[in-house]
């Protein structure tokens, strides 16, 4: 080397107090990553425990959030569905509401939509006339209006729903449970069921309607055909309506008088959406169980990371000695191992969140629900992973920091 280059880069000034070593955060993270990159398989396996735990927790939260979102979508997020029922007659079958009930309710200004159903007494639904009448399968026959699905938030799984035309003909739409009971899973032009002595053509099958489970177990026909062929007098037995969200309570209070001015006390008004919303919000026992299992997996994963880090410190005495010789302080060596532990657990946490989100999406898609991964669940998952990683890294980091440099260099 020439004398010029000596002069161009001055050595440390003699006599000046030494500055303590500095390590940039980016370099600290790079050092941590280096340790992981050098032992990829080991890193992946030790992060797996945390990943499984976080995945279980995120999946459980995601699946229950998806189910809830699905239910809320059906409820109409406002939960503004009301039902009007006319008590029961002496034999337990639904009593009738006045013919004027539905048009009167429709005139209440905050009512957005209204639809009526009529219970056809004594009608059974069978696959063919050859099936004994006693094997009715508990399927009831209900007269329904074309607007039923719109008000209830239901949908058709196969075929079509009743419209103004098919409501006049012997056409029937089966609820989800009723179709299953009858063994009908597709709609062809020749699919018929035997209702009260005559064949009706099946034109549609519904998806389950969580807000009105009685629809699931019913065969739905139009009011006109129920009147002409099944002897229904046109009186509805139940009315579903949706009101403007902030007017639900006032509407509910005037409903008995509107539906049956002569006998308001015989009218029952209920709000099924509030019951279902409460049920949806409640955690199931399984949620708690799986969250518990996830917590155990995360804990075991944390112990695994601590174990791997302790082994790593033992194996890398030479590297620790070298870094001390190059000017690393105890604190910087400790921070390097702590960073490594945090990166491992963060890796596990991120992998767990992705796995959990994938499981949620898979479940939601397979069951036709919207996929919802709650952001709070993701944040808590990553946070828990980092917390566990920090705890797991404290002891190995302290061991690495405590190692005397000369000893570390000698024993390697």
């Amino acid at each position: 080397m020439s004398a010029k280059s000596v002069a161009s880069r001055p050595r440390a000034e003699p006599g000046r107090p030494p500055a303590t070593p500095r390590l940039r955060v980016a370099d600290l993270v790079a050092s941590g990553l280096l340790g992981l990159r050098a032992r990829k398989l080991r890193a992946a396996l030790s992060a797996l425990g945390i990943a499984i735990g976080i995945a279980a927790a995120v999946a459980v939260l995601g699946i229950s959030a998806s189910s809830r979102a699905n239910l809320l979508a059906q409820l109409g997020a406002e939960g503004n569905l009301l039902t009007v029922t006319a008590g029961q007659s002496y034999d337990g079958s639904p009593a009738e509401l006045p013919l004027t009930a539905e048009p009167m309710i429709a005139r209440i200004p905050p009512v957005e939509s209204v639809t009526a159903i009529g219970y056809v007494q004594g009608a059974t639904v069978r696959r063919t006339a050859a099936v004994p009448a006693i094997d009715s399968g508990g399927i009831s026959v209900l007269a329904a209006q074309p607007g039923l699905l719109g008000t209830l938030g239901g949908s058709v799984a196969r075929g079509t729903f009743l419209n103004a035309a098919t409501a006049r003909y012997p056409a029937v739409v089966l609820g989800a449970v009723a179709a299953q009971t009858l063994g009908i899973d597709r709609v062809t032009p020749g699919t018929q069921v035997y209702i009260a002595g005559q064949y009706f053509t099946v034109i549609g099958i519904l998806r389950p309607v969580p807000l009105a489970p009685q629809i699931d177990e019913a065969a739905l026909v139009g009011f006109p055909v129920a009147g002409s062929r099944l002897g229904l007098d046109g009186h509805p037995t139940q009315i579903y309506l949706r009101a403007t969200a902030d007017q639900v309570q006032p509407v509910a209070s005037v409903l008995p008088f509107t539906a049956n001015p002569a006998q308001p006390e015989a009218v029952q008004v209920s709000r099924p959406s509030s019951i279902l919303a409460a049920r949806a919000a409640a955690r199931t026992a399984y949620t708690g169980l799986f969250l518990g299992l996830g917590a155990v997996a995360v804990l075991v994963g944390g112990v695994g990371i601590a174990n791997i880090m302790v082994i790593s410190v033992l194996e890398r005495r030479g590297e620790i000695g070298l870094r001390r010789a190059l000017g690393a302080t105890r604190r910087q060596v400790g921070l390097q191992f702590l960073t490594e532990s945090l990166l491992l657990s963060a890796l596990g946490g991120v992998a767990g969140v992705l796995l959990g989100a994938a499981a949620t999406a898979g479940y939601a898609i397979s069951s036709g629900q919207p996929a919802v991964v709650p952001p709070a669940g993701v944040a808590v998952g990553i946070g828990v992973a980092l917390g566990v990683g920090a705890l797991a890294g404290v002891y190995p980091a302290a061991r690495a920091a405590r190692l005397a440099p000369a000893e570390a260099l000698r024993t390697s």
Partner: protein
Amino acid sequence: MTAVLEIAEVSKSYPGSPPVTALAAVDLRIHQAERAVVLGPSGSGKTTLLHVAGTLERPGRGSVKIGGEEVSAMSDAELSGVRARRLGFVFQQFHLLDHLDAVHNVALGLLYRGSPARERRAAAVEALDRVGLGHRLGHRPSQLSGGERQRVAIARAVVGRPDVVLADEPTGNLDSATGAEIIALLAGLADDGTAVVVITHDQAVAAAMDRRVLMRDGRIISDQGPR
């Protein structure tokens, strides 16, 4: 001549029964650009001397000054700072990180000074060039011969332009021809103003250095050559 390393009346013993005396009242002054070799059989205390001189171990008694600064009373962080700025180390086992290429291994020599990565890399490339490995920048230690690995380690020791390079048996894992090259390289560092202290039990190394310090049982028994 400026003394870059002054060891005065340094004693060091390790607990045990009976306690092992590794250094007994050792005095040693190393000047700028000096080439010194510390010779002695194993157990003579020469590695302990290197550790004490390199602030890797604290002396039991006595004074150690590096670049004129008394280090005995410094905190751990201050000692680390002295190592980062004023000292370079070369080890028998090279102590290269296997998963880093030559440039990054050398750049580690500047890591704890907090200089930016680009500066560290540029200095590392230059240092590798200086040790004759300008064509091996991207090679990992496993792709290098023993002599080349030790050259990388030397580049790492000098990348920060230390006052003193302390080498502990730098030829211990090399054949004699490669060892001679490494010693010549180390001796050449002094041309740049860096003091070089090599610790070895290999008599052949001694020939390349100006000053020969002989140790036995923790004492300096002879100190020959120019200072």
